[in-house]
């Protein structure tokens, strides 16, 4: 039962992380923006508030030249999910070995 619970929890946690960082990451960018900055996301309203540059958190907050949220989207949906997937694989390899034993 211990391995069963480990499988369930590892799968649940890894799936939630992957769904968040790769799947609907951008939803949270929008929702958090609305919550904390009370913005109505229409093009005109956004330009009025943020100016033409439209940085999400703070103007000119960049990583390697990219706006932070875009950089995070690109990296998390690639390297981030690969690492989470590899961790899940190691956990499942361990469970499989114990199942065989």
């Amino acid at each position, binding site marked *: 039962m211990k391995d069963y619970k480990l499988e369930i929890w590892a799968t649940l946690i890894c799936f939630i992380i992957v769904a968040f960082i790769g799947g609907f990451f951008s939803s949270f960018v929008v929702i958090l923006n609305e919550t904390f900055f009370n913005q109505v996301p229409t093009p005109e309203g956004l330009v009025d508030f943020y100016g033409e540059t439209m940085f999400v958190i703070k103007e000119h907050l960049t990583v390697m030249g990219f706006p932070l949220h875009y950089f995070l989207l690109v990296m998390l*949906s690639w390297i981030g999910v690969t690492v989470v997937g590899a961790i899940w694989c190691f956990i499942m390899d361990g469970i499989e070995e114990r199942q065989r034993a």
Partner: protein
Amino acid sequence: MEPRGEVFVLGLVLSIIVLVISVLISVWARRLTRNLGDYYVAGRSIGAINNGLAMVSLALSLTTFIGLTALIIEGVYIAVAVYASFTAAFIGLMILAAPYLRRHKSFTTMAFISERYDSKSLRFISVIVMMIVSVLYLAGNLKGIGIVFYFLLGVPEVVGIVVGGLVVTLYVTLGGMYGVTYNQTFQTIVLLFCLMFPVAMVLRTLGTAGWFFPPLGYGDLVPEMIEFVPHYFWAMLEHPITYIAIFLGSFFGIIGLPHFVMRFFTVRDAKEARWSTVLCVFLVGLVNTTVYATGFAAVYFMQTTAAGVDLTPAAYDYMVFILVEALAGEGWLALAVAGSVAAGLSTVSGLLMIMGAGLIHDLYGELKPEVDDEKKLKLSYLAMFLVGVFVIIFSLNPPEFILKAIMWAFGIAAAGLGVPIVLGIWWKRTNKYGVGVGMVVGSLIGFAGWIMIDYMGMNPVDIPFPFFNTYLYGPMGWIKVTVLAVCFSFILTVVVSWLTPPPPEDLQRQVDVMHGWPDYDEKRYNGKGLPIAVIVISVFLLWFMTTLYDVFPK
């Protein structure tokens, strides 16, 4: 958009080399095929690296190579979000389905659904859903091959569709799954080189400091890009439900797309299935991030060098070639053309394989169980060829914008096949009644949505049902239909399964076997947490979809 005006000899030569090598690989692989298991699942002998590389080329179709660039030009941030979700979806596929499907030892998705739920009817329904999804997916990709030929030779797209279609039909028919696998591995290697290097050269010409690593090499052009296109990096122009619909379509769609799932039936064991996916997602991410750079460069190019040139939206599908030719030169263009031919062939071959297998193994084999494997193998060759010819004819009138059809295919696959697979693996109580209702309603919502909104060009506000008028007005047809289809499929499957008798113990036992347990325990994968969570989340998403109109006024 006009073709180049003269035959592009170097590009043509490289493309022909790719085509010839593909056929030769299949001729060689034919010797490995001795029985039906070899033909459909390569004798379940494929290793993790080989399978991972093959999956990459399956994922990186021509829609990635040329369609995504066009989508980025049209939709900027949202297009990147679509492919970011598609990349991550491979890990979702692995976590929720891949190793478990391998342990089930089916040949196809349709066989899995039929055997897990002990229902012939579900097998026939899933074959129909598979055919709809595969044809939608194929039409976009064959059109892409037509685009490449049109650009190369100036011949109508129809010629490319017929020639490319016949070549791929030939090598799939000849080589079976062994041929398809080794071809896809070869095509992945071609594709990686033929995309990365030309894009690096494009970025170098644009003057970026990090041109040698295209995925992250264009950051120093961002300030200028923001001046040209202020909303390029802007996530807030979309309602959050848009991204959630993309997540539902990509994560459950990829599980429902039978040509992806079929790859897991070919590997040696569950461990190889897992690690092949990790390799695949790393390489798919590498290529996708390079394509984001291509899209960025295309928009930048249109605002600078090509400013004032009248490029119609129809020309966006050619933008990769225009960009490479203008900024990198003909040698690199030839590489890009060969890479795009490889990308088109690999995906088409995987789809033909699953369609042939579905018709012979799942349909004919079920109707005529007395037919022996040798005859089925011979019929498989014939079916594969006929399917190829049928798809070529269907693709002669392909969709205008090649990525559109594929996004619909993802939505229908998610509701029709993805949901029954996921619940069949993780909830023992799922039964054939629930799956039957969920599958039929979910895939019908998706298919009807495609017919009305995309094929017939109707605005949801004009659809003659009060529900659509009240809740679904606005331009985002795919978003709404995908959320509706997937959520209804989940809700109906769970509710109907709960209200009808549980499946017999031998079917529930399959779930423990899929998860690798040597013994049976009734309590495993049988709790109330998962079904309750599924219903709560689905209802929440359906409600959330209606809030769309508080944000974007009618």
